[in-house]
């Protein structure tokens, strides 16, 4: 299984990006930013179309650039208008996705490329992308561990972070940029449609089993790694598509964690009225 270079590269990408998304996801979900990640991912379709139209053989860089632009546009509109974040994100997501689809319809003969970005193609990852994923993983892991306390405080209460002397706006901006880069990079693994699952499912799995943030971070990182590598092995063994198999494997881990939760004592939770 590991003798083929394309398999080695796919495994390396899963080993790097699975745990990275898992750890980052702990804060993404706690800060209710799952939809943000979805918006950035879907909008990147416009970047791919633009890159191909400009004649790039590999439009990854243009895609990353457009994703970053959309992320910053969300922040800008949130500060400048009274619109709710949800509205802003839904608006940008549909606009950029529609622009991407129009772009594709004008370009002839790129149907394969469209599928590759929509659904991901982990087995086509090139050596440069593995190097990029490695550099990004080192930077994000490094920053996450250095900024674990500031980021945690920001999640608990932005005003407390301000009083503690933290540069709240800058921290927010750095977090958004890092999340966008990681999501854009992971699109090659799972595709635009499924990529958000990488930052949502592992933290959800970890939350079922953890009693504190340290356990949650470690378990989410482990769930990201297991889901990525396990899914890749299953997809190779049974000749299934890579991205979807990774997602289904992660969801299976989540289901197992739900069973584990039943045996764990939890403090009584307030009931939700809408259930």
């Amino acid at each position: 299984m590991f003798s083929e270079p394309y398999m080695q590269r796919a495994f390396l990408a899963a080993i790097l990006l699975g745990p990275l998304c898992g750890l980052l996801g702990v804060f993404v979900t706690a800060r209710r930013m799952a939809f943000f990640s979805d918006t950035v991912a879907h909008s990147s379709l416009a970047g791919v179309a633009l890159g191909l139209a400009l004649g790039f053989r590999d439009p990854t860089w243009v895609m990353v650039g457009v994703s970053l632009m959309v992320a910053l546009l969300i922040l800008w509109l949130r500060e400048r208008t009274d619109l709710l974040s949800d509205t802003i994100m839904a608006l940008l997501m549909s606009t950029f996705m529609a622009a991407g689809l129009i772009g594709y319809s004008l370009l002839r003969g790129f149907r394969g490329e469209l599928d590759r970005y929509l659904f991901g193609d982990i087995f086509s990852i090139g050596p440069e992308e593995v190097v990029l994923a490695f550099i990004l993983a080192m930077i994000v892991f490094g920053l996450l561990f250095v900024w674990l306390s500031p980021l945690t405080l920001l999640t608990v209460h932005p005003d407390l972070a301000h009083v503690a002397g933290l540069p709240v706006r800058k921290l927010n901006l750095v977090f958004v940029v890092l999340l966008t880069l990681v999501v854009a990079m992971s699109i090659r693994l799972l595709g635009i449609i499924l990529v958000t699952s990488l930052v949502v499912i592992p933290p959800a799995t970890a939350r079922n089993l953890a009693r504190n943030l340290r356990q949650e971070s470690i378990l989410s990182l482990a769930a990201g790694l297991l889901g990525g590598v396990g899914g890749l092995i299953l997809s190779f063994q049974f000749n299934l598509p890579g991205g979807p198999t990774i997602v289904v494997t992660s969801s299976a881990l989540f289901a197992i964690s739900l069973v584990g939760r039943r045996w764990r004592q939890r403090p009584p939770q307030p009931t939700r009225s809408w259930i």
Partner: protein
Amino acid sequence: MPDIHFHPGGLALEVRGLRVSLGSTQVLRGVDFHVPRGQVVALIGPNGCGKTTLLRCLLGLQKPESGEVRVFGRHITSEVLRRVGYVPQRLTLDRSFILSVREFLCLKLRETRHWFWQSRRQTDGLLQSALPDFELAPLLDRPVAALSGGQLQRVLIAYSLLGNPELLLLDEPTAGVDTPGENSFYELITQIHQRHRLTVVLVSHDLSMVYRHAARVYALNGVICCEGTPEEVMNADSLRQAYGIHVTPYHHEHGPGHHHVLPQRPQP
């Protein structure tokens, strides 16, 4: 404006001519007041009178159109904020974010900032020696999001005290706390005030707490419409200015010094 030299300890807080508009509404219309060091004071006013906006100005979160805020005689910078403890009304924390009380408290102490890599024994020892009289041990393993109103209040105060503040700002401290919880909260504030000689500012719409716990009261309604000792402020005239309705303080029977104030709707 009273002379600064009447307060040998100096002023903890000075607010002069503070004006703030939110959208087209002028929320603060020239707020002037000062708080001497070492006192427990209350800033009261009805909902929508600008309490939250004023609090945000005191913390440097809201820039005023005009006027100034000085904390310990200095403009607000991150240096000055280090001497301020802020206790918010509630946290923005998602219920599913499993941050334990131990981890939350560790965020405040320089020595425990790397809690992720430190052992529980190490961090507990440091927290215990920083706050020897706080009975925190039973709460340390609980997730912050699962605490009751009273427990969260206690943890938030402990968190602020870990920074050794000289000024403590509490936003609606008794909202969401039941009566026994309220009593133990005020006992805690008295204890802290006596032990650490802090200046405490209680921001609240709850008039009944003022009699028992504040040395000085400021009533806010866009401007400071009256200030003084609780007895001075609680006369119906000045309170009517703040609340815009008829208010009758009455003294009732469950214990000395326990007063309640009943706001009444104006009669047509």
